[in-house]
């Protein structure tokens, strides 16, 4: 494998890793607050459809982005209602929302565009356009680092840089603000937060809504950045891979960046079986590459690579003592 191929793969690693990263950070807020969310997939799908639809109709990707976030937040609100207000089973609520999203996105896209559940293809301002970072062209001649900067780091759309920036922001919010402390506390021991006079319900709703916003970004990036339009089931299990990455990262932001980029790398490799074959010197079946993130997650869950301990109050509805 030569350097140019490596750069190509790293470039697609970032492209494919970013939706995972956004969804993973989304899950991080919710699960750190004690609300398990296996509905990331559905929220992303909903956001992908809403953003692509509105972007196609208005011609502006930014209005599309807002619509995507709104669509995702609507689902987040239902998830919050079911798991916080009505103290229902959070896992079942997530599964249910995934099914609803899977069907309703096709229903809506079909009724508006009539193209078999796809939205009209997006072009021009209806997509996130690549941004060339300063000096990318000029520094291209610098050996090794120049092409790396030009090919891999520069030339992505704005959401990619936003997603990367969200990692330190999330870290700061979680570990350096009062809100973050309370958020983590409410995921470990909601009774203590309640005793301190802070509303458990409000905290958890805020976390679930942040999850909605971030899933909205992830879905909009999928439909208007990575691809040019929405197609049925276009998330293709990314919500679950993000969940896997979240466990792999043990619910911490920097590790989430690492885990999602690792899983993005696997996805990029699965697209290039020829390269894998050349490097490994054996023929690796593509399905094996596809399954790698899932197998890795099971290995992590099994505690073979350090133990992943979820937030202690996760999955438990909080019932205030009377």
């Amino acid at each position, binding site marked *: 494998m030569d350097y140019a191929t490596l750069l190509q793969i790293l470039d697609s690693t970032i492209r494919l890793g970013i939706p995972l990263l956004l969804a993973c950070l989304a899950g991080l807020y919710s699960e750190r607050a004690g609300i398990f969310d*296996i509905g990331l997939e559905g929220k992303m799908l909903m956001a992908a459809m809403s953003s692509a639809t509105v972007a196609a109709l208005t011609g502006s990707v930014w209005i599309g982005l807002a619509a995507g976030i709104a669509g995702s937040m609507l689902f987040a609100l*239902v998830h919050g*209602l*079911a*798991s916080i207000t*009505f*103290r*229902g*089973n*959070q*896992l*079942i*609520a997530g*599964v*249910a*929302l*995934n*099914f*609803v*999203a*899977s*069907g*309703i996105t*096709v*229903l*809506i896209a*079909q*009724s508006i565009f009539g193209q078999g*559940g796809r939205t009209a293809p997006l072009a021009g301002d209806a997509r996130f356009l690549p941004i060339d970072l300063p000096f990318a062209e000029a520094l291209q001649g610098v050996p090794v680092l120049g092409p790396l900067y030009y090919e891999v780091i520069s030339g992505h759309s704005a959401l990619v840089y936003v997603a990367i920036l969200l990692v330190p922001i999330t870290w700061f919010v979680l570990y350096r603000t009062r809100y973050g402390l309370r958020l983590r506390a409410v995921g470990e021991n909601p009774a203590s937060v309640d005793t301190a006079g802070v509303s458990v319900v409000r905290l958890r709703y805020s976390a679930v809504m942040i999850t909605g916003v971030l899933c909205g970004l992830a879905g909009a990036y999928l439909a208007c950045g990575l691809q040019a339009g929405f197609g*049925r089931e276009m998330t293709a*299990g990314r919500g*679950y891979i993000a*969940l*896997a990455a979240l*466990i792999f990262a043990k619910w911490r932001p920097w590790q989430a960046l690492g885990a999602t980029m690792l899983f993005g790398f696997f996805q990029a490799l699965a697209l290039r079986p020829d390269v894998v074959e050349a490097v490994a010197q054996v023929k690796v*079946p593509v*399905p*094996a590459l*596809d*399954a790698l993130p*899932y*197998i890795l*997650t*099971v290995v992590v*869950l*099994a*505690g073979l690579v350090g133990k992943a301990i*979820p937030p202690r109050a996760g999955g438990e509805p909080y019932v205030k003592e009377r």
Partner: protein
Amino acid sequence: MTKLPTWADVVLVPVISLLLAAFVAALVLLAIGQSPIQALNVMVEGALGSAYGWGYTLYYATSFIFTGLAVTIAFHGGLFNIGGEGQALLGGLGVSLVCLYLPMPHWTMTLLLAMLAAMVFGGAWAAVPAYLQAKRGSHIVITTIMFNYIAAALLIYILVSVLRPTGSMDPASARFPDAVGLPKFHDMPFLQDLFLKYGPDGLLKLSKEGLPTYQRVPANVTFFIALAACFGVWRLMWHSRLGYEIRAFGKQEKAANYAGISSFKIIMIAMILSGAFSGLMAINNVMGQAERLLQNSAEGAGFIGIAVALMGRNHPLGVLLAAILFGFLYQGGASLGLETTIPIELRTVLQGLVILFTGALDIMVRMMLGWFFVPKTATAKGAA
């Protein structure tokens, strides 16, 4: 919150949840400019309006009974098995291996072997997450989801690289020999009279040999095995020591441990049984209908098992009724896709809404019902 009388809990809560789901689906249809009444008519006509429609409805229902029972068994043990889809895929692999490489002279013998293989393969696929839950504390929900994806990848690999006949392009196994085909409803004496074909003149359509011809439906002998499975699960859960242990463990793990019930044993047994029932579904779709192994043979039935179990209140009788209801939704949804401009995905929406209302918003439904039951119970107490 008011405690509801048992009949309301068992009958009213699922019915109201279903109505709420239907109501929201109707709103969705209105929002996309379709008529919910017309949709309902097409669904009822397509799924229940003819013997032919019933032949499909019951075919789907058969699969859903198995996966519903699978989820039910695990639920009673306090375990949420989302891995039905993967277990059903693996069950299909087991069935296919038997049908391709061990065909017996008579279909009954092949069926028995295939059932065994389906249960072993499905059970084994559930055993790994079960072991990880029991020994390492890995959350069963996440591991079973992961195992769904791994199963799908594994199956693609096996179909493309191992079972695909040489020269064939689509990722599917070879056709099973004719001798292993299961009798369909239109092959069975008496039952087949329902599927007689009539010509436009109202007379029986006859074949060249002068014999009556029948409409071909996918519902097959597996349906009766599914009915037997419902009875078997009921006996197991409520009339056997093992069933008692599973339910006790599911209700209160610590108390069950104190009573001498081993967590490890129950988690393993409940999950393996659950996986075995998911796998058993494959005799319906793989052996009974497709007669070869296809890439996505389970077609989401593993997930519908969740909705069926929730709707059926985790009781085999409820599972049976809910499975028929979902069979209706499935077949009716297919008619919608054929006869109207409403996409077939409406059934996925309905499925999700049923899971949402019965599984996650059940407390909301109970609260709403509680308002109606408050005065009655209060007076009853006063009288006593």
